[in-house]
């Protein structure tokens, strides 16, 4: 009997957003070797671990370098936005509403007369905070539950599988609308909590799968036969192998969580004004799009670049960590 065939990676894709399918630009190129080609000896470098090998590859991958630099930049400006802007995102002058680009205000003003540049810079903070914190929560909760289920199996495993099925069946954006519409707190925490609540099953499936795979490896069986304790098995033998897919999926998911926060804020249930979020600004700008398209385009562009950077980063990391593609 086959497992459920729908793609669990689409769990965060209620809006049709994100997911972690194959994004590889040249995933199989390395397979295009000459038949019977240079399998021969050749000078062999000293064996490296999966991680140092992956790092070696990543440093030479322009996709990784560019997306990592973009992300670094985003993190820096979300920690210290005053580095590149002197204004305040809440300092608005209705008299200047919808005005275009002018000296000192390169992106113009939005419908409330706020400086679009400053608001776009400050918006990064929300997105990065939601993305990073939600991913941490999802990764910890999901991988711990998944790993336990995969390692011990049995009833707990079956129950967990059914629970994840339940979560997959709920459309994400609808769930967000229902759950978040009643929450009055205007901070990032409810959004993060919601994403963790609906996101963990995706990670737990991945973790469960890779733990089961790792558990079946001969060397793990051998260690077990030699009387290694459970904790030793998990820490020394299973975790190092099972963690790579979790990291890859989590990185790509981070991008989709940012996208999800913006979507929920656009729908009016994520963050609400006076919070600063790209989703809020895009939503607020859409009625004036005829007169002030810049107020819509700048935050949209920033959002797109941010999500793209995380997805490409995850993609590059996956290519580097997947030894099958070498």
């Amino acid at each position, binding site marked *: *009997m*086959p497992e*459920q*065939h*729908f*793609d669990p990676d*689409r769990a965060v*894709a*209620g*809006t*049709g*957003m*994100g*997911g972690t*399918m*194959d*994004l590889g*630009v040249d*995933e*199989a*190129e390395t*397979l*295009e070797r000459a038949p019977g080609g240079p399998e021969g000896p050749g000078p062999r470098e000293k064996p490296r671990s999966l991680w140092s090998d992956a790092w070696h590859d990543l440093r030479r991958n322009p996709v990784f370098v560019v997306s990592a630099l973009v992300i670094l930049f985003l993190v820096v400006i979300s920690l210290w936005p005053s580095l590149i802007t002197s204004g305040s995102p809440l300092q608005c002058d209705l008299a200047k509403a919808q005005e275009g680009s002018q000296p000192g205000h390169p992106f113009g003003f939005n419908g409330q007369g706020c400086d679009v540049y400053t608001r776009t810079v400050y918006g990064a903070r929300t997105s990065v905070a939601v993305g990073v914190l939600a991913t941490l929560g999802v990764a910890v909760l999901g991988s711990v539950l998944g790993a336990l289920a995969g390692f011990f199996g049995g009833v707990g495993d079956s129950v967990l599988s*059914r*629970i994840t*099925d*339940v*979560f997959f*069946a*709920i*459309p*994400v*954006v*609808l*769930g967000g*609308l*229902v*759950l978040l519409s*009643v929450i009055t707190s205007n901070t990032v925490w409810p959004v993060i909590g919601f994403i963790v609540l609906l996101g963990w099953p995706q990670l737990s499936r991945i973790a469960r799968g890779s733990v089961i795979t790792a558990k079946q490896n001969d060397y793990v069986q051998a260690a077990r036969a030699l009387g290694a304790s459970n904790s030793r098995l998990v820490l020394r033998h299973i975790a190092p192998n099972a963690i790579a897919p979790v990291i890859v999926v989590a990185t790509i998911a981070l*991008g989709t969580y940012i*996208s999800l926060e*913006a*979507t929920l804020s*656009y*729908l009016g*249930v994520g963050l609400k004004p006076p919070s600063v979020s790209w989703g809020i600004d*895009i939503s607020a700008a*859409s009625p004036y*799009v*005829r007169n002030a*398209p810049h107020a*819509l*385009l700048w935050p*949209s562009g920033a*959002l*797109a670049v941010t*999500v*793209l950077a995380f*997805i*490409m980063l995850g993609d590059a990391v996956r290519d580097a960590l997947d030894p099958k593609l070498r």
Partner: protein
Amino acid sequence: MGRYVVRRLLQMIPVFVGATLLIFLMVNVMGDPIAGLCGERRCDPATAARLEKEFGLDKPVWQQYLTYMGNVFTGDFGTAFNGQEVTELMATAFPVTIRLTVIAILFEVVVGIVLGVVTGLRRGRPVDTGVLLLTLVVISVPTFVTGLLLQLLLGVKWGWIRPSVSSEAPFDELILPGLVLASVSLAYVTRLTRTSIAENRRSDYVRTAVAKGLPRRRVITRHLLRTSLIPVVTFIGADIGFLMGGAIVTERIFNIHGVGYQIYQGILRQNTQTVVGFVTVLVLVFLVANLVVDLLYAVLDPRIRYA
């Protein structure tokens, strides 16, 4: 096969119960189900108590859930905020969303598969790289941004289409919204097809087909596509549930009065019955679509036999 279907149907029951219960709890426990019933103001205590009794809201939640589900299975989804039957709302909303979903699926099948086949056969060429980058951008840009931008360009700037859809929502007005709804899945279908084609193109059985002296066209359509499209078809099948659930964003952008719109209204007015009713149907659609996909797998791939 028959036994497999029965088992799968039985497995669906706990998932269905779990998902609907979860939604029911979210709506009932966290929201105030009668808040929307007294118009814009809060109900006065006496009316509130009367209403609570009338709707059985003074009973424990699990009893409320059982009563509600009992009613649902007799076809009674309750009443919406304006006194209309929820089933009436469904009768007008679902056809619209189904039309929208059909258009989205058509885009995925036609555009997604064609692009995937073209790029899969021309790996590394400029077409391939271009399409690949485009799909990456489409995946990264949230659907609501894609929708707003296309609406801005096609609807406002160039005036090719009406920026918002009329309440009848005929097929032709739903073409752009359908594309927006499909966009991310379309990019995935393209990539999935491309990867699948590129992988199978170097497979032994394709080499055999060439060695048999079959014309290139036949090698591709009969030998390569047949196997490569199996994962694509199942992806698209499973996508139906996602699209209907995710249509809410697209429907809001283009002001389409479909399922998403009704749920959105239900949430705004805190009308429990509308929200739970619609979500229940969506969950069912999702589960059935997944079951159909599993069965489809067996039809498409003779190697899979269900015990």
